[in-house]
């Protein structure tokens, strides 16, 4: 059994306890007032997106098609900010309720462009799960695509002149019909499409 603390030690213990509790209160205050970048807040704290917009460079040569199959893994890597898994043999799998592509190039562009996309919808337990895909480029929604699961689908989405004059296209693919594959899968694991190829071509 411990003996009661002597008076000076007892006072020090009370003082230290009070200091600790005060510092815990300060830390608790910090927990409800985080000072973080918007991307961080959206993904980790507010959870308003499943796609953590990472600062990949988007290195890309205008007019080329990037393969999102294993043969194009190196070229595709800097164009995938978030929401992708793979590539595997049948493409790069979208995970979550949206995915991003980034294309950044140095060639001058003033004319309209075409966003070329080759995708296929996923199947769940052998059942095709057709998908709607909203295409947003530089924060402007351009199209809603209907992607089937039987065979790869090719799409050309017109990008108006003036939307990508900075030499950069941030493409968001939103998947309102994304599928929860397992009963406890969180939204960050939902599945929708597999991307086979993408690129920006002259209109």
């Amino acid at each position, binding site marked *: 059994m411990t003996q009661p603390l002597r008076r000076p030690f007892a006072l020090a213990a009370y003082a230290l306890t009070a200091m600790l509790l005060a510092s815990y209160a300060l830390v608790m205050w*910090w927990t409800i007032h985080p000072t973080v970048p918007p991307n961080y807040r959206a993904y*980790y704290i507010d959870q308003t997106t499943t796609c953590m917009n990472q600062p990949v460079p988007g290195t890309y040569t205008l007019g080329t098609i990037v393969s999102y199959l294993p043969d194009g893994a190196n070229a595709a890597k800097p164009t995938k900010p978030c929401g992708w898994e793979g590539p595997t043999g049948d493409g790069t799998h979208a995970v979550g309720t949206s995915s991003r592509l980034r294309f950044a190039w140095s060639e001058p562009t003033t004319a309209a462009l075409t966003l070329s996309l080759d995708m296929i919808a996923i199947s769940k337990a052998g059942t095709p799960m057709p998908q709607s895909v909203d295409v947003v480029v530089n924060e402007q929604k351009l199209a809603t695509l209907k992607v089937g699961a039987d065979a790869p689908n090719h799409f050309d989405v017109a990008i108006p002149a003036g939307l990508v004059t900075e030499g950069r296209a941030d493409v968001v693919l939103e998947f309102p019909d994304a599928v929860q594959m397992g009963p406890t899968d*969180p939204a960050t694991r939902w599945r929708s499409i597999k991307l086979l190829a993408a690129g920006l071509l002259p209109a």
Partner: protein
Amino acid sequence: MTDAVALRPARTIPLSAALVLIPLAAAIVGLVIRYLAYAATVDDASLASFADGLCRWDCSWYVHLAEVGYDGFPTPKLSNGGNWAFFPLYPLIVGVLIKLTALPTMVVATATSIALSIGAVRIAWPLLGKNLLAYTLFAVFLLAGPFSIYFTTFYTEVLFLFLTVCVFAALKDRRYLLAGLFAAGLSATRIVGVFIVFAILIEAWLDHRERGGTFRDFIPAVFRRPELLLSFALAPLGLFAYMAFLHFKMGDALAFQHVQRAWGRPFGLPPAFVWNALLSAPKEGFIPTASQVLGATTILGYVLSIVLLWKRRFGMAAYSLVAITLPLFAGMASMLRFVSGLAPMPLMLCELLGKNRIVFAVALLLMLVGAWYGTVGWLTQYLALV
């Protein structure tokens, strides 16, 4: 003569020496078994690559933390899974030792883990009823058992178990301030460590009752005992210190919690996860699936918690129930590691198995054989061990 004394084998060496030699012997035997399993499993195995070769799964995160420290945001590899998910105390200790010794990280981590395991065994002597058979089993469980990988490589389980044993040993002697200090370390080792405060609270309540106190005068009595009050306040210090660090590093004191989203863990009710795991039968044959092993381990954890309650070790029981149940809200992943690294579990198990010499001998043999299979399973990525 007490049962504990009766169960002691005939000795020709002093007890104090035996209490040191037993874990030392277990450490050596464990190293030999794990090395033989490693050599039999891995191509080009060598003694030089042994420590690094056993570093799998989360171990590589801890190595990075010890060598480099915490990443900022965004992470260097632009990954959603930041290393701030991992609590700092053990990587910090190994990181300091690396700087002091200039030895390879995994060599330092392996030596530190083995030293902590030996320390945990020695400190656990009074918690095992001073039964030499239970003590031997506990030593073998940590240092030469099926899950010895967790306690002899670079996982936080070993420090977590060591500090938990220290807290309960201190509480057994009613040394609350010491218990609070160890608890502070515990809450800087794993998040569930902070719940050791319930064990301190329960032991303080039992202490209060023994002194003739009542429920009504418990809180005033706590306030009259500054060392007890300080013990409660110290327990979460590790957690809050880490949160303060994350606030300054990341701008988010709860970054360790928020980053869990990147791992895509499910969220649900523990009974549903356990039930589904137990029903996850193999497609062919009778060998249980990894999910079934995890489910069975969880059930065993609860059974041992109930045994702890029955034996009136209320502090250990309450802490175990919380530490088992909380991770279950995120599914069954790592439950084998969590349960085997939760000190009251192996303590209780070894105490039960050490009550009878025949059971002791069988358990000892199974543990040693299990060390081989545990190591092979670890190296061949058997999912239940992760």
